[in-house]
């Protein structure tokens, strides 16, 4: 599995969390950009389209689900993995309805996250091909 050419964007207002996650992914050879709010996320996606966005649902400013909706409109091939708190299955399900690829609960299991990223990238490639 070649992960070097994966393009991942991580979005969460919890700096420590998301930077540490990026660091751990980096250790596993997965490059990931990090932004800390919805606005920056939309800018980053517009500037350089990632394959997968890992997006926290609860953020100040533009909410995760709103970012998801806008991304899905502007960049339909981008796959979104939602991060929700425990017990907010509803947010996850709502996100799926809005076009998220999957959702995960915090705290994360990094191996599960990577598995989901991989299948999302696979799906993104296929859908991009089908779309062409």
């Amino acid at each position, binding site marked *: 599995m070649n992960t070097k050419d994966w393009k991942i964007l991580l979005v969460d207002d919890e700096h420590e969390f998301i930077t*540490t*996650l990026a660091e*751990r992914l980096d250790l596993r050879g997965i490059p990931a950009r990090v932004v800390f709010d919805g606005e920056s996320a939309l800018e980053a996606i517009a500037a350089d389209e990632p394959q997968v966005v890992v997006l926290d649902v609860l953020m100040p400013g533009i909410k995760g689900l709103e970012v998801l909706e806008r991304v899905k409109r502007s960049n339909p091939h981008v796959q979104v993995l939602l991060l929700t708190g*425990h017990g907010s299955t509803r947010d996850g399900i709502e996100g799926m309805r809005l076009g998220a690829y999957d959702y995960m609960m915090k*705290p994360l299991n990094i191996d599960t996250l990577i598995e989901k990223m991989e299948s999302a990238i696979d799906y993104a490639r296929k859908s991009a091909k089908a779309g062409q």
Partner: protein
Amino acid sequence: MRKLVALIQNPLRELQSDVDEAVSPERYTLLRRKIIGIMAAAMLIPLTVMAVLNYYEHQNAMTREIQNPLRVLVNKTKNSFELFLTERSSTVSLLASAYSYQELSNERNLARIFNVMTKEFEGFVDLGLINDQGLQVSYVGPYALKGKNYAEQRWFQEVRLKGKYVSDVFMGFRNFPHVIIAVQHRSEDGQTWILRATLDTRQFERLIASMSLEPDADAFLVNSKGLMQTNSNAYGKILERLTLALPPKTFEPAVLSITDPLGREVFLAYAYFPEADFVLMAVKPKASVLKTWYTVRGDLLFIFVLGVAAVLLAAVRVTDVLIRRMKESEERRELALRHVEHSQKLSSIGRLAAGVAHEINNPLAIINEKAGLMNDLLAGQPNFPVRDRILAQVESILRAVDRCRGITHRMLGFARRMDVSIEELDVGEIIKETMGFLSNEAMHRQIELHLEIDPKLPRIHSDRSQLQQVFLNLFNNALAAVADGGRITGTAREVGDNVEVSVRDNGCGMSDETLKHIFEPFFTTKKGKGTGLGLSITYGIIKRLGGDITVESEQGAGTTLTITLPIGQREVQA
């Protein structure tokens, strides 16, 4: 008036509508007035009717009792009068036939006869023989009446016609009241004569005196023309006109209730004489004879007033108690409702708390990532002296985060119970999750929690959080019922179109009385604590979800609460 009729026809409904509809603060006053009105009416109407009937019955009985002796007395006295007159006239009759005209015309003979007669019979004043020409042939008595001619007098005509005559009381030549008895005798040779005797009316007074009446009573003789034949205390002297109207003619003694000229209410007992032109009358004022009745009537009235007062007092008292109870229970209900409302309002603090529980995920996620990173960093490193010991700590942290994950998951599962939605659910999983909350308490109290969940249990359409609440209540009840070291068993299985979940405990059980009320709001067996909303809320939720709940319990043996939930999505009741 119509309202009153409606009130009487259906008092409870009227009251009910008041309770339901009236919202003004005066509704208790209104209700109180109505209840008192109805109660007073219900008790006073029969009481009054009875009192009135009793009054008239009593009055009649009393009247009869007073009238009867009076009637008897009048009858007896009338008989005495008749006997007196009959005896006297028979005597005169006998004398007339026993002696010849010659014998009687001899004044010495007549005097002897008169002497014997007055010895035998009281009341005779004089005796005279009158020939068929109306001339008094011989006379014995205190007056000088010999040679007087009676041919033109009415009584003479009458005795010639009828053969016998008893006069009214009259003054006549003698100028004092008297009655004459005249008998005509016809001898075998065709000669007729008349023997005439005068009676002193003092005899009449004596007969009346023998009636021994009370001083305020009165008795007298009167003739059919309304002339007094004896003296009366109140209605005229002898030969004066009677001041009372003459009553209808009857020979049987009768009693009338009249008002006399003096304005008194009186009983008038009277009887006409068949043989003479007399009416015997006895008058008794009601006031004196009804004295006892008036006392009785006073007693009756007193008792009636007392009864009415007692009834009113009782009605007011009972109503006050009733209203106070109602007020209290309403206040309690309001308080309880306010509590309920309040616990519902708590949801905003609950939501805030849920927000905090969410937020706890953030430091946990960071700790998780940091520890994970450390783990990663250590993994790629060759051994150094404390590597394994550090690794052990990192792993311990990761395990700790895992445990925290479980805790927040549980907490948030409950915080979510405010959201209502129907989804496809695994009942078994919800039961397991719910039981997880109580495992700490169960472990602490060494209570054995046992689950028997059919692995092939179908998924149902229902509300997750509401079911969590239901199971939580059921398990919580069971926990409250069992002693330390007890056992609680939860089972879930498919029965027909339903999933049946039962929670059985081997606790204290419930009395029949408790069982009867267990699903009522605000019922609680835990004195002093709790609002008793547990099972009624459970009941309400289950009903809303289209299911049912039953309870079996035996005191000392334990309780089984069983709920059935429809598998399919049934019409959810509002």
